[in-house]
């Protein structure tokens, strides 16, 4: 080896190209230059063409007042807020719904896959039919059917389905739950003045919960016996918070706000629009079918002998699944799950079809109002790329972690 590298320079230019490693390096360098050149020329031509038409790319419009109103916002927004803030509203709507969809489709997908691999013929085949039907319907159609045929068919707001309906002396109608084609209005606790005291109780409860969790982990390390630490932590949080709440009776930290029927819409309480609910439930139905298949691939990838051995050791079916099969199935299922979750954030952009103001819908509005199509498309591409990138990084990290534990 040493001899070889020492004699090489003497052989001159010809052997320089004959060395496969240098040749590969040269080709990679050339390829890199070509890519850079291509990107550069494309950019230059786009900018030149736009400048020639008097539309040189600029991002100043982002700070201008947007002049639009958005129906569903997590942060405060009105028509005087900037285009950038409008974009933020859309981003938060997209992210919040994506996260919820992912969480719920894992839960629901898990239930479906348990049914699918069940030894009960009917249960297994109902799950199979569900997976096959949902997976073979285009998502857009699923959303439209769901929205049109289910949510829009609910009674109008005047004839909403109400629970605990009350009519006040002034004739205002309120209820603890109103269900109409506008969505769901629910009674909701609103913090009152005394909430600033209750805050400390909540903080205390959180500290207690963390302490309980740490103690259970330490105990596990010492004794090797596993206890449901998270469950205990959660219960102690609820316990402390509950005791605090009882102590504060007479000066409650929350007041219950009931939705009141106005002239057009109901006001107050928690409101979930039918668009949000259609998109959310449609996506959960759709995604969970794919999640179920990915999980099934994982579970069936574990050799039958593992299950049989676990049963032979006296474990029940569910415990054998939980303790033996699923930890091994996870490793196989995570890569396909990653690509399913990557699709979720992108799939929320179909919300534009059913009137949900997600990132893509708001982008369209901004493009229409400012005419800055190229700039907005670039921004939105970058945003979706970052969301996918982050999801991917997280899933790869999790994948790596699970793999390590197994070794």
């Amino acid at each position, binding site marked *: 080896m040493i001899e070889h590298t020492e004699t090489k320079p003497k052989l001159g230019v010809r052997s320089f190209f004959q060395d496969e490693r240098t040749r590969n390096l040269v080709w990679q360098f050339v390829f890199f230059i070509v890519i850079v050149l291509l990107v550069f020329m494309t950019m230059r031509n786009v900018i030149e063409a736009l400048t020639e*038409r*008097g*539309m040189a790319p600029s991002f100043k419009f982002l700070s201008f007042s947007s002049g639009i109103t958005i129906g569903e916002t997590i942060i405060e927004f009105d028509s005087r807020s900037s285009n950038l803030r409008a974009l933020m509203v859309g981003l938060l709507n997209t992210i919040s719904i994506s996260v919820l969809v992912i969480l719920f489709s894992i839960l629901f997908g898990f239930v479906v896959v348990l049914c699918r691999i069940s030894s009960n013929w009917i249960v297994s085949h109902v799950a199979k039919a569900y997976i096959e039907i949902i997976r073979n319907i285009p998502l857009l159609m699923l959303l439209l059917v769901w929205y049109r045929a289910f949510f829009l068919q609910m009674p109008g707001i005047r004839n909403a389905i109400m629970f605990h309906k009350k009519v006040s002396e002034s004739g205002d109608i309120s209820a603890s739950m109103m269900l109409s084609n506008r969505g769901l209005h629910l009674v909701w606790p609103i913090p009152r003045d005394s909430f600033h005291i209750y805050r400390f109780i909540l903080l205390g409860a959180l500290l207690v919960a963390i302490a309980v969790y740490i103690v259970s982990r330490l105990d596990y390390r010492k004794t090797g016996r596993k206890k449901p630490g998270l469950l205990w932590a959660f219960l102690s949080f609820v316990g402390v918070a509950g005791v605090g709440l009882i102590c504060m009776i007479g000066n409650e930290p929350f007041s219950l706000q009931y939705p009141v029927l106005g002239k057009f819409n109901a006001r107050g309480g928690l409101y979930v629009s039918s668009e949000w609910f259609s998109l959310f439930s449609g996506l959960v139905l759709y995604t969970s079918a794919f999640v179920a298949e990915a999980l099934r691939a994982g579970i069936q990838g574990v050799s039958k002998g593992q299950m049989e051995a676990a049963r032979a050791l006296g474990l029940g079916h569910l415990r054998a699944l939980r303790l033996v099969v699923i930890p091994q199935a996870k490793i196989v299922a995570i890569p396909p799950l990653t690509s399913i979750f990557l699709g979720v954030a992108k799939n929320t952009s179909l919300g534009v079809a059913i*009137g949900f103001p997600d990132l893509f819908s708001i982008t369209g509005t901004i493009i229409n109002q400012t005419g800055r199509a190229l700039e907005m498309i670039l921004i939105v591409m970058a945003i979706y790329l970052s969301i996918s990138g982050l999801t991917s990084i997280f899933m790869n990290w999790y994948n790596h972690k699970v793999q390590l534990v197994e070794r």
Partner: protein
Amino acid sequence: MKMKKTGIMLIALCMMFATAFEISAQAAKHGATLDAVKKRGYLIAGVNSSNAGWSYLKPDGTYEGFEVEFARAIAAAIFNDPAKVQYRPLTSKERFAALQSGEIDVLIRTATHTLTRDTDLSLNFTTPYFYDGQSFLVRKDLGVKKLEDLDGATIAVLTGSTGEITLSDVMAAKGLKYKPLLFESLDELKNAFFSGRADAWTSDKSSLAATAATYPNASDYMTLDMTVSKEPLAMAVRHGDDDWYDLVQWVLNAMIFAEEKDITSVNVSKVKSSTKDPEIQSFLGVKNQLGSLLGVSNDWAYNIIKKVGNYEEIFNKHLGPKTIFNIPRGLSQPWTKGGLMYSKTIFNIPRGLSQPWTKGGLMYSPPFK
């Protein structure tokens, strides 16, 4: 060897890209559009595919409507054949980008002429072919009469329209709160609105009338008797090719002028052979060479009127009294005599300012001299 080939191919590909962009960057020079259209053999017009009466795709794959007639008229002026048009269905979001990128030659798609679009989007607008205005469609039993009554309402609006921003402005100006419900497709919007998901639907009066007329329970709904915006609908072309802009503008002028002078597709041949009016003689190409100044044949205006019709003819054919939209033109009051001729029933698309100037409207064509 194999690697070398890949490298060469990559470089070739890269050069191809560069040339392609170079070409597209050079579009829109003077007279270039007309030359390109002539060379191509047909006009490419950006239109709507689902706006009943205005521009819509028929089951047999052809386009029909008031706006489509203008594209036909331009084709008639250039090729003496109104069928030489390729229609591109565009959403309101796509329409300006399609024009800027050179994908279409002219945009005729209920586009409102606004300062921003004129300047920032680098477009040129003709004079309006229809003076429209935004209003609200509501259920009659809601008892809504004026804008203030809509405080707190959910209002459906098509995203990508001027209506979206006008709505936001007028509500903010009066300090009224509302929930917008934005849809990209008219079908989804109609579905949600007519099922009671929204309390009102805002759009141009012409569109409200055209769409509501096709709904079975149309009589349960009414358009509010007010207009919150001015919407001069005009044809648009790209900046940078004034010759093309001139042609499109004068095609519209020709149709308005023909109405003023009572020249119709029926009598145009007779008028051409018998008229003593020197302006009409120039107009129809009997004398002078007006067509050559526009880069088309001298009987261009004759061809438009003969093959497509004058403004009144195409208006009546698609939006007039004999259509389901049923616009009695005689009821329209000229704006100079006390208002802008806005009718009270949703079936009436007021001709309003779209009357010829001789009858008190604003449809004015410069003299053909």
